[in-house]
C-alpha cells in the first residue's frame, strides 16, 4: 500500500541527507544496522514502490558490496586472524568484519537516498523551492535534470517506434536488443541537442530570464512548522556531529 505523504519533499530530502551524515559520523555498525532495520526497510516497504526501489538498491549496492567483500575479505593488510590462506590472498576475520561494516553502511546510504529520490514528488519539490524563493536557475537545473530522464526515455521509445515502423526488427535476444539500442543512440543525441537549442530560445521567449522573484502554479505545501523542523534537524545533526567527533578525538 502506498504510504500517505505527510511531509514536504524538501523535509524528506533533508531528513535523508542528514541520516546519511549521521551514519557517517557515528561510524558504528550497531547504529548502521539499527538505521537499516528500523528506518530503511520500513521506508522501502511502505513506499508503494518496494519492488522498483529494491531492484535499484540491488543494482547499485550489489556490485559495491561484492567488490568490497572481495577487496577487504581477501586483501586486508591489518588482518591477523587468518581463516583461509590462498597464497597472496588471505581471508581474515578482521577483513571480513571490515567488509561487513562497509557493506552495511553502503546499503544504508543507497537505501536511504534511493528511497528518497524514487518517491520524491518532483513537482512539489520544485514548487516548494520556488515558494521559498530559491534561485530560479538552480530550480530549473534540478527540474530539467529530473525531467530529462522521462524525456530521454520517451524520445528513445519514439525513435525505436519510428525505426520499427520502417523495418527494424527488435528480437528477444540480448544481441538484438543491444543492436537496437545502438541504432537509437545517434539520432537520440542529435535530436536532444537540437531540442535543447530550440528549447533554450523558447524559454527566453517565455520570460524565463526575467529578473525578480518567480511564482509557482502549485500551492505551497510547506508549513512554518516544517521549516522550523528542518532548521532544528540541521542544527541538531550539526551539533551532534561536532560533539560526537570531538568526544571521539578526546577519547
Amino acid at each position, binding site marked *: 500500500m*502506498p504510504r500517505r505523504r505527510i511531509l514536504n519533499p524538501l523535509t524528506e530530502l533533508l531528513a535523508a541527507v542528514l541520516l546519511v551524515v549521521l551514519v557517517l559520523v557515528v561510524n558504528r555498525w550497531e547504529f548502521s544496522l539499527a538505521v537499516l532495520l528500523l528506518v530503511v526497510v520500513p521506508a522501502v516497504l511502505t513506499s*508503494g514502490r518496494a519492488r522498483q526501489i529494491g531492484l535499484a538498491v540491488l543494482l547499485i549496492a550489489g556490485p559495491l558490496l561484492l567488490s568490497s567483500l572481495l577487496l577487504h575479505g581477501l586483501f586486508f593488510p591489518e588482518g591477523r586472524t587468518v581463516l583461509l590462506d590462498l597464497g597472496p590472498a588471505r581471508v581474515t576475520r578482521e577483513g571480513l568484519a571490515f567488509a561487513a561494516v562497509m557493506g552495511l553502511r553502503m546499503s544504508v546510504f543507497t537505501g536511504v537516498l534511493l528511497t528518497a529520490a524514487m518517491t520524491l514528488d*518532483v*513537482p512539489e519539490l*520544485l514548487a516548494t523551492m*520556488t515558494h521559498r524563493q530559491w534561485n*530560479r536557475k538552480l530550480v*530549473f537545473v534540478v*527540474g*530539467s535534470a529530473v*525531467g*530529462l530522464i*522521462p*524525456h530521454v*526515455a*520517451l524520445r528513445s*521509445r*519514439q*525513435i525505436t*517506434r*519510428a*525505426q*520499427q*515502423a*520502417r*523495418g*527494424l*526488427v*527488435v*528480437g528477444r535476444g540480448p544481441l538484438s536488443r543491444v543492436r537496437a539500442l545502438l541504432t537509437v543512440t*545517434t*539520432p537520440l543525441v*542529435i*535530436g536532444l541537442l*537540437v*531540442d535543447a537549442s*530550440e*528549447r533554450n*530560445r*523558447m*524559454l*527566453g*521567449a*517565455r*520570460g*524565463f*530570464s*526575467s*529578473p*525578480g*522573484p*518567480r*511564482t*509557482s*502554479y*502549485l*500551492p*505551497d505545501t510547506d508549513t512554518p512548522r516544517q521549516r522550523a523542523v528542518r532548521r532544528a534537524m540541521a542544527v541538531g545533526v550539526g551539533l551532534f556531529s561536532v560533539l560526537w567527533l570531538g568526544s571521539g578525538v578526546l577519547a
Partner: protein
Amino acid sequence: MIRLQSGSFAYDDGVPLLSGVTVAVEPGEYLVVAGASGSGKTTLARLLAGAVGTDAGAVFRGSLTLDGETVRFEGGPADPRIDPAVWSASVAFVAQGAWGQLSMMSATVGEEIAFGPCNRGVPYERLRREVDDVAAALKLTELLDRDPRRLSGGQLQRTIIAAAVVQRPRVLVLDEPFQGLDAGAAADVSAAIDVLRAGGTGVVVCAPMLPRTAPEGARIIALDGGHPVFDGLLAEARWAGLRRYGIGTEGDAPRIGAARPRGAPTTGGRTLVTVDDVVVRYPSPGEPGGPGRSERRARRRPPVSRDTPAVLDGVSLQVRAGEILAVRGSNGSGKTTLLQVLNGLRRPESGRVTVDGTPILRQPTGAFAGVVGYLFQDTDQQLFERTVLREVSYGPRAAGLRRVDALRRAADALEAVGLSAVADIHPYELAFVQRRLVALASLIAAGPSVWVLDEPTAGLDEPARTGLAALLVQHAQGGGAVVMATHDAAFSAAVAHRVLRLEAGLIHEESPGPVS
C-alpha cells in the same frame, strides 16, 4: 504598436531574404502572413518575436519598433541585443512544433500554461484564475492535470497556444497555429484570439495558405521567395492570383485535375487490410493519449479495466487494393491509435488485424514494414538519420536490400516527392514541408502496398498538398491502398473513396466520397 522594417536578413551568408519588407501591426489588428514553404514567413515571425538571430550567425539589417522605441540593426557585431525576457513581456510567440516549446519543467498542463506568468512573478491566486480562464476558453480544463508530454498532437498544440494567450501579450505572433487542429479546436483558438484582440492585442498569424475565414478587416501579407508580393485585405487577396506563388486557400480541393480518382475501386479488388472487432482500452504510457502522471498514480490501485472507456470499442473495417480511405474525428478521438493498430505499433486488447493475408499476432512491428508504411503525425519523431538519402534508404536497407539497391530506391522515392536536390543535407536543416516530404519518401522507398498516413496534409503548402494528392491517387491506381487520418475535409473529399468518422471508440461511414 509594433513595426518591423527589414532591409535584409540572411542565415550564414546565405541568400538575403525579406529585403524591403515593412510590417506594422496596430492594436487589435489581425494580420496573416501567407507564403509557401521557404517564403520567409517563419523568419519574419521570428524577427517580430525579437529573435534577430545574431547569436546564431544570422545577419539582420533593419529596425524593430515597439511602442515608439526603435532598435536598429546594421548587421555588425556592434548591434544591440534584444533581451528576450523584456521583449516577450510584450510580444508572445508560438513557434511551429509544439514539442520543442514545452518547458520540460512542468508535470501537468496547468503548470505548463502557467510557466510564462510564473516567470514574471504573477501571484498565486491570480495565476490559478487566469490559467483556469484560458483553459476553459480553449477547452483544456479536463486536461489540466495531464502530463503535457503525453497529449495528442492537437491537444499539445492547444496547450502551447494557451501558454501564450495566458500572458495577455500586446502582440501575439503565431507560426501556423491551426496545424493539426480539428475544426472545433481551430474555432476555439480563433475565439480565444478574438477575445485578446478585443482587449487590444495585435495578432500575427503565419500560414502556408490563405485562411478560409478570418475576422473582419483581416490584412494579408503574401511572401514569395523572401519578398512581399501582396499586401491588402483578405477579400482582395483571394483575387490577386496568389496561386502562382504557391499560395492556395485553405479548404480548397487540391488541384489534381486528370489524376482524380475515377470511381470506387472494383469491389473485386484484393482485400489488403482487415480489422475485425478491435478493442483498444489501455493506451500504454509514453504514447499520445496515454495516461498522465495523476492517472498513473491512480493506476497503482486495483485496475479498473472494464470501466476505462475504450479508445477503440469494437472497430471493424476492410481496405481493398486500389482504395483510399480517410478517417476523420476530433482531436484525441483515437485516429492515431487506429492507424497504429494497422502496422502493429499498437496491439489491440481483443479483435483481429490482418494485413495482406497475414494476421498481426505477436510478430515484431518491423516485420510488417515492407507491407505497411507509416507516416507519423510528428515528422521529427520519424526522422533520425544524418542525411536525407540515408534517412530514405533506411527502410530498404532494413528490409535486407543491398546498399546500392537501397540507395537507388531512395533516390527514386526522393525524385517522386521532388527532393532530389537535398539528398545530402541533414534533415533538420530543411524547412518543415520538406522534412514532411522526406518522411513520406522514406515510406515510399520501402515499397509497402498499404500507406498509413497520420495527418499527411498538416502544414503543407499548396504545391506539396497537390503533389501529395497526386501521389496517393497514383499509388491507389497502381494497386496499393491508403488509410489516412485527416482534419482536411476538402482533401479527403477530393482523393478518398470512403470517409470514416471515429467517435467515442466507434466508426461510422460518413458519406461516400464525391467521386464514388
